């Protein structure tokens, strides 16, 4: 008899919450945070087994109540599409807890905030009810504000305010889109359950003009959360100022919420509208790839460079989203996950470099390869993944997107290919400045320039393993997601 694993879905959320409570009550912060992140892999594994066998797991799907004025329902679910994002969250959260520096000030609050960010992302990916889908994403907003404000570097106060207000504005536009979507459905069929809503709208699509309005609101709302040009200006500075694990979680995981939302809601529910505004998305994503690619060439601070490069990759994902082909959508999903791992890795390396040498200004660095070979290795993995070296996750995604989008948007594919070049130039220049050349003063003076011991290395090794896994065997993502994506492109 098959085990009913639905109970493990709320467990995925309760375990980090429990961890936060324990830390608040005085349990050793970093150890507890790592422990709960490891523990959370267990329900993750159990749930994955069922998803692989039967396609989806649902929690809380009982009888629907009689028509309510406010029909929210705590309903969790996971299918082939959200599976890979849930795993991305679990792994990056674990790595972020491991990469968090020891002896940070006000450790308790630090790890509670980090756990809440991870919890918000997990909850958003698991929620089936739109009310909770939206709410869980917002849960991460205030902890991020505090993380950047209290533990950030550089212009942390400005960055925290800018990021929070910007994301709030984006969220509210998104909320407007959700209201518009739900309210355009006739009252008898109205539901906040996106599975029900998708089926309803598949059978009785909205009129083309309504779809366009909703899709446009989603584009601006989710687009702001994903930092699509011209709504991107919160992101590079925010990531540059954020403490390492916060940048890892936000750039690696939380930003994928916007893309996930587009895959989940905009594409299946407003397909006509999405086609209608496709050309606007095209211009915007070209801005991400080309304009921000050029901007990233000008960066002198490694953290800022990573911020821009992370935002830049979102353009390529959007290209996959508007490709309208199974290959392109699969590539978008693969790149979402791959970018999650590679961005987390890159920010973790930048954090280590900054902490050990006291600077992330590339002109003040140099010769890291000699003095810190292990850190150099992981830097290379992160950079190579980011510029799309075959064998690593991002390459798999990008190549699928390029092939998938070629027939529909050949010009954009050319632009995106140039983006790869720009990205390679910027990143390789950074590697040259940081790793090679004469050993700089700050690297020379660093007391402990390299990673030492398993305790410091494992977060990096973990992310590396997953980067290679997704890069070499992308079917781990595409296999379970295929049925879901197929229904997206089915006429």
């Amino acid at each position: 008899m098959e085990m009913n694993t639905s109970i493990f879905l709320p467990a995925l959320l309760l375990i980090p919450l429990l961890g936060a409570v324990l830390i608040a009550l005085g349990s050793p912060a970093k150890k507890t945070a790592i422990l709960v992140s490891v523990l959370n892999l267990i329900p993750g594994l159990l749930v994955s087994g069922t998803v692989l066998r039967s396609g989806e797991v649902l929690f809380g799907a009982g009888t629907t109540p009689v028509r309510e004025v406010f029909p929210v329902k705590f309903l969790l679910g996971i299918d082939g599409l959200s599976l890979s994002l849930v795993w991305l969250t679990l792994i990056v959260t674990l790595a972020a807890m491991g990469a968090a520096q020891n002896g940070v000030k006000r450790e308790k609050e630090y790890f509670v905030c980090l756990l809440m960010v991870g919890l918000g992302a997990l909850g958003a990916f698991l929620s089936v009810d739109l009310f909770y889908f939206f709410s869980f994403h917002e849960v991460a907003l205030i902890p991020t504000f505090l993380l950047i404000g209290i533990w950030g570097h550089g212009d942390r106060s400005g960055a925290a305010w800018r990021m929070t207000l910007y994301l709030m504005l984006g969220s509210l536009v998104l909320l407007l889109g959700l209201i518009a979507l739900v309210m355009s459905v006739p009252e008898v069929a109205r539901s906040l359950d996106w599975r029900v809503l998708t089926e309803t709208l598949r059978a009785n699509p909205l009129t083309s003009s309504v779809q366009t309005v909703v899709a446009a609101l989603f584009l601006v709302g989710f687009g702001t959360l994903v930092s699509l040009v011209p709504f991107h200006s919160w992101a590079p500075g925010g990531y540059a100022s954020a403490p390492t694990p916060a940048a890892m979680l936000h750039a690696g995981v939380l930003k994928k919420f916007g893309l996930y939302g587009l895959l989940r809601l905009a594409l299946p529910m407003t397909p006509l509208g999405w086609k209608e505004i496709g050309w606007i998305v095209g211009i915007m994503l070209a801005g991400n790839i080309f304009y921000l690619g050029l901007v990233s060439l000008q960066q002198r601070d490694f953290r800022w460079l990573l911020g821009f490069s992370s935002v830049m990759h979102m353009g390529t994902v959007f290209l996959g989203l508007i490709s309208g082909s199974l290959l392109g959508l699969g590539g978008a999903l693969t790149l979402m996950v791959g970018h999650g791992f590679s961005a987390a890795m890159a920010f973790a390396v930048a954090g280590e470099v900054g902490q050990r040498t006291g600077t992330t200004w590339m002109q003040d660095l140099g010769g890291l390869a000699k003095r810190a070979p292990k850190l150099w290795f992981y830097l290379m993995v992160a950079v190579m993944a980011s510029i799309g070296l075959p064998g690593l996750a991002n390459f798999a995604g990008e190549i699928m997107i390029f092939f998938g989008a070629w027939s529909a948007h050949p010009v954009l594919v050319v632009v995106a290919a140039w983006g790869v070049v720009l990205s390679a130039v910027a990143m390789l220049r950074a590697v040259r400045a940081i790793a090679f050349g004469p050993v700089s003063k700050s690297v020379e003076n660093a007391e402990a320039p390299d990673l030492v011991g398993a305790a410091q290395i494992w977060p990096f090794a973990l992310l590396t393993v997953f980067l290679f896994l997704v890069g070499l065997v992308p079917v781990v993502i595409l296999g379970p997601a295929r049925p879901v994506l197929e229904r997206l492109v089915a006429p």
Partner: protein
Amino acid sequence: MILWFCPEVLFVIAGVGIILTDCLAPDTLRRLLSPLALGLSVILLVWTLLRSGQPMPASWSNLLVTDGLSALFKPFFALCLVAVTLMSTRYRLGSDETVRGELLALPFFPTAGLCLLASARDFLAIFVALELVSISLYLLTAFHRAKPASLEAGIKLLVMGGLSTGFLIMGIAWLYAAAGTTEFSRLLLEQAGKPASPALLAAAGLILTGLAFKVTAVPFHAWAPDVYEGAPTPITAFLAVASKAAGFVLLLRIFGFGAFALESIGQVFRPVILTLGIATVTLGTLAALPQRDLKRLLAYSGIAHAGYMLLALGTLGEAGLGTVVAYLWAYILATLPVFIFVNELERIHGNTDMRHLDGLARRDPGPSLGLTLCLLSMAGLPPLIGFSVKLAVLTTLWNAGETPALVIALVMAVAALGFYLSPIKAMYWEREADSIPAKRFSIYLVWVLLLAGAANLALGLYPQPLVRLAERSLAPHPTSFSIPQK
């Protein structure tokens, strides 16, 4: 006979009882005045919860009615009284310590008045009840005889309150002249289907103006920040929560489904109320941004909340009215605990400047967490109840097709983060002040704030009970609006 033991009567008896105890009892007993007042207010809250749905004495039925709305809001006002009494027992009076008895006793009278207001079915009842509320509040606002700010606040409230009463009574007079009655249901019956006469419209406009003062709608809001700042903090809380809620209950009753719920009047006043709402949200939010004093901040935040409620009310639809009811409960849940906190802060530091919050989270993590949750609920962040009601406002506006109002409400909800986050920023992110006061927060505050935060969170995650309450409060009640038998 038991009908005469309705909450309104008991509030008055309790108030008189406290004054008499204060005057006549020996000094040893007078020390028990605070627990006595607090106990009475709690007992009355329980009694109100039990009795608020029961009919009133028959001889009052010309003026007063018991329906879903009054049944829901009498406990609301009784709850405010408990909080105000709690705050009054701990309020720092300084050289005025000898008059604490009055500070404890007087709020019982306006509470009785508010409960009467919640039941009013005739403009005359509204006028009389409103005077009962106002006169007690003039006294209470100017309570700090030694403090110029308090006296100034008292004078301002007196002048502005007088002005608003003037508008109201003028409106009632015009109404009587135009329609020949001041009773809601008769007005509805007689005017239904007819085009509204100019005199009737003028009457409605004057009455709306009078009530706009009470709910601090822009441009009739200017008294609020000064009065809130000068009045003793418990009284500020009463003004900001109970008095404002009463204004909205009246607006619901008069424009929502009572006296003026007429097609002909709604056509004219729907855009007026929506415009008031837009102005109120915008000004309240923008003016709150630079505030550094917590009481002034709360005053402007209260103005902004009034704006959201006016927007929901302005759609004049069933959903909008229910939203106002739910919003008021969400508002009390988030705002009263913050006032209780401010009262304690003032007790320790002597004023309510925001810099006293600097670094508070390290000294007092419990109250800081509770306060943060309440503030975020006010800001309308999920998963707190403040978000659910703001969502309801936005949905209502969307369904009513009021796009400009919707866009402004959205933008202001973002801007509002600017001032709701600044106390949070002060608590968690600023350095502690060099001189930390010796006095600490008492344990009761920790519990009040944590419980309030938990309530905001729980209702936010599961808002159904509140929605059901709001829905039921507007459902026709068997005894409501029946024409009295002569």
